[in-house]
């Protein structure tokens, strides 16, 4: 890949060792990494270096990572992947609700982070999602939005309208985590947001109807956060 074609990835991370490890990993995969050690530097770099994606640590010394997320979303829809620690469940959800695309929990595996990054970059290059592609494909799962039809490996699957809306929403963002709130508001309506028990019921019905393998399901639960639809046949 030539220098001009390299995609810039902004890494906002206050731990120098992790920032250096990410820089090496990104350079080796042909990206152009830009490092920022504080939230303010991150916001400045997001404005000046025109990154194709941002990897954002939520625990920054000068400001909360969710604040950085909000500020960047003020003018840009660049994909943002947040890095969090296990016990910061609500901040993780807050960041996703504020417009972050995905999250990875520390300590993370670099290949997994890079896989999430590829998903985010694909989304940016391809669809801005909503002018909906009438036929969505995730592995052997086909969702025909125009005709309200779903098939798995060629076999039709009967879904109720809510189940269909739930699945179609996830299929429009393959590989990406959508929060409980996002799903509830999009499928049930803007007055919903906390009724996660609905989602549990619908997710388990969908898994049954799609014949999901419990070990490698298509419909993945992100505990406390939301759901994502993946192609279980593909490697991360």
């Amino acid at each position, binding site marked *: 890949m030539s220098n001009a074609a390299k995609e810039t990835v902004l890494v906002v991370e*206050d*731990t120098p*060792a*992790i920032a*250096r*490890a*990410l820089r*090496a*990993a990104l*350079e*080796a*995969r042909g990206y152009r990494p830009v490092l920022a050690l504080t939230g303010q530097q991150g916001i400045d770099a997001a404005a000046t270096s025109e990154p194709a994606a941002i990897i954002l640590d939520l625990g920054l*010394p*000068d400001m909360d990572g969710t604040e950085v997320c909000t500020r960047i979303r003020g003018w840009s829809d660049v994909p943002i992947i947040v890095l969090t*620690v296990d*016990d910061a469940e609500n901040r993780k959800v807050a960041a996703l609700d504020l417009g972050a695309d995905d999250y990875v929990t*520390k*300590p*993370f*595996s*670099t*290949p*997994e*982070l890079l896989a999430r990054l590829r998903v985010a970059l694909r989304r940016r290059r391809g669809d801005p999602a909503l002018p909906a592609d009438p036929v969505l494909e995730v592995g052997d799962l086909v969702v025909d939005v125009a005709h309200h039809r779903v098939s798995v490996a060629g076999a039709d699957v009967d879904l109720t309208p809510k189940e269909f809306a739930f699945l179609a929403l996830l299929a429009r963002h393959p590989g990406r985590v959508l929060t409980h709130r996002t799903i509830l508001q999009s499928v049930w309506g803007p007055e919903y947001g906390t009724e996660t028990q609905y989602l549990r019921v619908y997710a388990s019905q969908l898994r049954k109807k799609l014949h999901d393998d419990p070990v490698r399901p298509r419909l993945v639960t992100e505990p406390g956060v939301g759901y994502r639809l993946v192609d279980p046949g593909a490697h991360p």
Partner: protein
Amino acid sequence: MGATVLGALLVVVAAVVLIPFRGQTSTATDALVLMVPVVAAAWIGGRRSALVTAALATVTLEVEFLPPYGTFKLDLFDDAVALVVFAAVALAVGTLVALEGERRELAERRADKIEALYEQQRSLQQEQERLAAEKRALELIGDYRSALLRSVSHDLRTPLATIRAVTSDLQVGADYDDATRKELLDLVVDETERLDRLVTNLLSLSRIEAGSLEPERQAVALDELLSARVRKLNRLLRDVRVQVDVPFTLPLADADYTLVDQVVTNLLENAARHSPSGGLVRVRARAHEQWIEVAVSDHGPGIDPRERDRIFEPFQRGEGSTSSGVGLAICKAIVEAHGGSIAVRATTVEQPSGATFVFTLPVHR
């Protein structure tokens, strides 16, 4: 009952005393003297004793002091009036005195009761205060434990995150040139060394908490200790210039080598963390009579004078600091276990900047 007997007895005594003089005393005097037993019986024994004694006194007055003596007869109409008046007055006075006595007794009983209630309330209050103090102490321990857990999980997680990020990347065989591969492996080495220092600190902390931090004193050559420690930390200190200034005439310190080594390690790690790249970190030791003073100074942002005591308390991190918050607390505990002291001041005096940590150890004799 006893009061009635006493009343009767007093009436008898009064009669016995007055009878020899009954020709010379007036009826009024006899009547007044006979009133005394009534008052006494009423005061002590209450209404019933008053009634009995009044009756007895009236009879005594009639029989012994109103002529004809020794009979229930009366010669004069005046005496009859006097007797009726005496009976009425004795009854009234006896009743009033008895009532007063009863009121007094009731008041005393009430006062006793109030006193008892007050005592009870005071002991309840004391118990309550004791329980509140106990609760506060337990809360402090709880706060301390959760601060410890927060600190430990944060400090362990940061190096672990780096190690996992690098090793997971190398495992999938990413295409790195030799220089990058070395840089990444160096990161892992640095972070494992950091974890090692952290674990050493935590073990010391648990010994301090358990009260079992007893320095094993020996004669320690500080010049050797300081140079050796700086050499061992060469990776941590690679971005700063380190100067060790110890005169060869420095007396030996009376100290626990391992513990003092830990103090020096923590102070150097601290200095390296806060120094600007290429900044000077100076380690200096001097003897002052019976004490050796060791100073570790950096040219970092320094410490706010208001914070200078607080930073030696456990889990106090500086603003935005990535340090564990236990290192300086351990330094203080170790130095004080040697009888010495530790403090921090600015490195440059004119325009205060940088931090200089100074601790003292006793000279070995």
